[in-house]
């Protein structure tokens, strides 16, 4: 049964045949094609999918914010049975509202929270100044900001990241919208804050009877708060259903693959069940060459000992002297050969700084790092660093900035192979590309011809070309889609098994650690607060900080055997 005119008794949001296209008419590229979405009052409907699936375009269209020459059409867009009228300036903000991803940019830094909230409710609801201020305070209290009366007059920079996102939510909900679009509302936040913000969104939607579209790539968020979910792929909705049913027994093969790629936090899989695009091909010459790496003294591939790094922040001109922050504070650990050691922590915990010191890219202030018996401390001369870094390679987070955009893949991968004759190198590069699951004939292309996942494979090939014994991976998959993440993690695991690499894996993503690491260290404000075998740390955490991190992990329902 489908009513063409929105005069039915349905309440909440009803969208039929939504299509969004970008580009000029004539050669417009559809981003969303004929998607139907419903959201009842108080219901949270998740729109999930990987980048490029069109999920953000749905939100943009429902806010009528598609930039020309892009445009959108729909057979029906109704809210409580009435067609949404985008011609009045009151629709957006009052009836349909939005929670943005990044609380750093969603608020105007030049105005107080009060003036932003007051402007919003006065414009849309026509309240007088006093009533508007009361409403502003009431909203801050509702989103859980303590001491709202005092804080309403503050500027955005006076709030922490999590508190700022609460302010963004207060702003979105100030006019009691009937539909809220939350576009990746927690992607910019730390794990411990993420869960609180999601819970807040759920509570407010329930209490106020708002329909909510939760646009996200984060399956944890979907599992935690959504009632129903729409799985998007290439602009089409491939499957729609109750969240619990989708997570435990999705019908469509794509939904199943997407869910299988999500690393579970509560048990360890031998491998991710994702189809490996371009299975790794091994080449006899390459394998010999990779294993023929210069042997060095020392059995410990990588160790750090009481490593410390202090950042001095500039003091005020007239005031107290310079302040110092201990970014890395007397951290010690050692990797065993062939071991994957995970280092987890929230942003600012010092884990990336530690990785860069271990890689010999920054100087420590105290303590030392050792790679294959070579030492690196505060007094190591710069000239000795090149020797220290031998046998060590790194894979970085952002596959866009980690490849020189002016160099071809071939030049990039040849660079660490300086000790190998060029003719041999030219023969090995195609084999190396195949080794990491890329076609062998792409060597002459520039990075812009590749997707994020492919670039990360190129970066891994470059790291392998240095014939490392130690690989430091700094958030190697956090810029990637979940199915690509699963492939890259599988690849890294295989390389460890086949080449006996030792890996230091830096990440904020606990489920990834559980899947990948043999041992794990937990960092908080520069200190290593807990270290132990992965299973033990996850099942019986000792430090209270670790316990806190683990309680915020989303739990996905266990998959039922496919029927």
């Amino acid at each position, binding site marked *: 049964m489908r009513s063409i005119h929105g005069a039915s008794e349905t309440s909440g949001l009803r969208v039929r045949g939504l299509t969004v296209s970008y580009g000029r008419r004539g050669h417009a590229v559809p981003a969303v094609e004929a998607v139907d979405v419903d959201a009842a009052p108080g219901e949270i409907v998740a729109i999930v999918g990987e980048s490029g699936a069109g999920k953000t375009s749905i939100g943009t269209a429902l806010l009528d914010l598609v930039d020309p020459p892009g445009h959108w059409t729909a057979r029906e867009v109704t809210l409580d049975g009435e067609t949404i009228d985008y011609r009045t300036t009151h629709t957006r903000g009052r009836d349909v509202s939005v929670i943005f991803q990044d609380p750093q940019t969603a608020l105007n830094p030049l105005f107080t929270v009060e003036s932003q909230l007051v402007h919003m409710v006065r414009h849309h609801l026509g309240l007088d100044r006093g009533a508007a201020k009361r409403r502003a305070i009431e909203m801050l209290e509702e989103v859980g900001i303590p001491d709202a009366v005092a804080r309403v007059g503050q500027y955005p920079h006076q709030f922490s990241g999590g508190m700022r996102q609460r302010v963004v939510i207060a702003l979105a909900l100030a006019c009691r919208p009937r539909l809220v679009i939350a576009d990746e509302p927690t992607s910019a936040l730390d794990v411990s804050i993420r869960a609180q913000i999601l819970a807040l969104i759920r509570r407010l939607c329930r209490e106020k009877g708002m329909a909510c579209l939760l646009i996200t790539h984060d399956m944890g968020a979907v599992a935690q708060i959504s009632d129903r979910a729409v799985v998007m792929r290439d602009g089409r909705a491939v499957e729609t259903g109750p969240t619990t049913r989708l997570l435990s027994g999705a019908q469509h093969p794509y939904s199943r693959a997407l869910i299988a790629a999500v690393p579970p936090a509560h048990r360890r899989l031998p491998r991710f069940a994702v189809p490996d695009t371009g299975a790794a091909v091994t080449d006899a010459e390459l394998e010999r060459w990779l294993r023929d790496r210069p042997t060095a003294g020392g059995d410990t591939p990588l160790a750090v000992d009481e490593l410390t790094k202090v950042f001095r922040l500039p003091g005020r001109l007239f005031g107290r002297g310079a302040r110092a922050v201990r970014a890395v504070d007397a951290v010690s650990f050692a990797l065993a050969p062939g071991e994957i050691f995970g280092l987890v922590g929230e942003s600012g915990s010092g884990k990336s700084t530690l990785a*860069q010191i271990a*890689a*010999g*890219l920054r100087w420590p202030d105290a303590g030392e790092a050792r790679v294959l018996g070579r030492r690196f401390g505060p007094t190591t001369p710069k000239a000795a660093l*090149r020797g220290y*870094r*031998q046998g*060590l*390679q*790194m894979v*970085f*987070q*952002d596959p866009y*900035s*980690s*490849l*020189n*955009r*002016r*160099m071809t893949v071939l030049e990039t991968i040849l*660079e*660490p192979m*300086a000790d190998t004759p060029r003719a041999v190198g030219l023969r090995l590069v195609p084999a190396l590309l195949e080794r990491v699951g890329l076609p062998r004939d792409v060597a002459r292309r*520039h990075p812009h011809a590749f997707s994020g996942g492919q670039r990360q494979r190129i*970066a891994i090939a*470059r*790291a392998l070309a*240095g014939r490392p014994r130690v690989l430091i991976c700094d958030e190697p998959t956090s810029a990637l889609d979940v199915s690509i993440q699963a492939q890259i993690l599988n690849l890294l695991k295989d390389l460890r098994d086949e080449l006996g690499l030792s890996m230091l894996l830096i990440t904020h993503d606990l489920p990834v650690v559980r899947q990948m690491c043999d041992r794990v260290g937990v960092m908080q404000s520069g200190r290593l607060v807990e270290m132990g075998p992965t299973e033990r740390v996850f099942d019986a955490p000792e430090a209270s900080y670790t316990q806190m991190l683990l309680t915020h992990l989303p739990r996905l329902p266990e998959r039922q055997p496919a029927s």
Partner: protein
Amino acid sequence: MSAVLSAPPRVGALFLASPKAMISSAVALILILSALCAPWIAPHDPFALGSFSLMDSELPPVWSEGGDPRFLLGTDTQGRDVLSAILYGMRVSLLVGFAAVAISAAVGTLFGLVAGFRGGWLDAVLMRLADVILSFPTILIALLVSGIARGLLPDTRQEDYAVLVLILAIAINEWTQYARTVRGQTLVEASLDYVKAARLSGLGDGRILARHILPNVLSPVIVIATINLALAVLAEATLSFLGVGMPATQPSLGTLIRIGNENLFSGVWWVVVFPALTLVLLVLSVNLFGDWLRDALNPRSE
């Protein structure tokens, strides 16, 4: 564009789609080529003193009454062919312009790379030096340089070194722009992960700068160089017009304008107007092309 710069392929397509780019570059190219070919295409040799006579002096352009078909744009007070003088004068102007741009771009890029990559005291010294130069008017520094050169060089050699002095005077002003831009760009590039990867590949500072950072900071250098070519030609003309640039024995466009200007009120307008028009056309076409190039190479203008 050469492979090193590896301008994205779209620049070619953008060029063909832009009438502004095509017309301005065509005009600039014609002017530059005709200056280069002056010895072969100029109807007369303005430096062969014996070849012109006072009989032919102050002849108007060929289309005016009394014009002589041997002298298309007329002659000056000494009977010299204005068209030939312009072609040769443009040679001098462009020589000074290109040389000044080449020197200032090379020095500025090098200083910018080193300042941005090394940081510390070297960065501070180079950038404060640039600040000091920027706080003086361009023309003042150029006058200062040519004044000092005049004081140092013996009178007999001054004309021989006039070109070098001019080039130096202009280059000293202009390297600061390259240095500041390249330094900023270098700071950005040096913080990117590919530079760390290059270090882990065993590359030293020099090779990282040359192989990785330099190609990535070159697009703004090309844009500034194009626009500065026009500025350098103008600066040369200004100095020569003021009498501290090229001497009358090796006239540039600016010298020609100065000489012509002295006779303007006696009605011999063509001696000043045609060199001036040539200068305007040259500067305008190079500027318009530089403008377009800046937009085309700017990744944000996509």
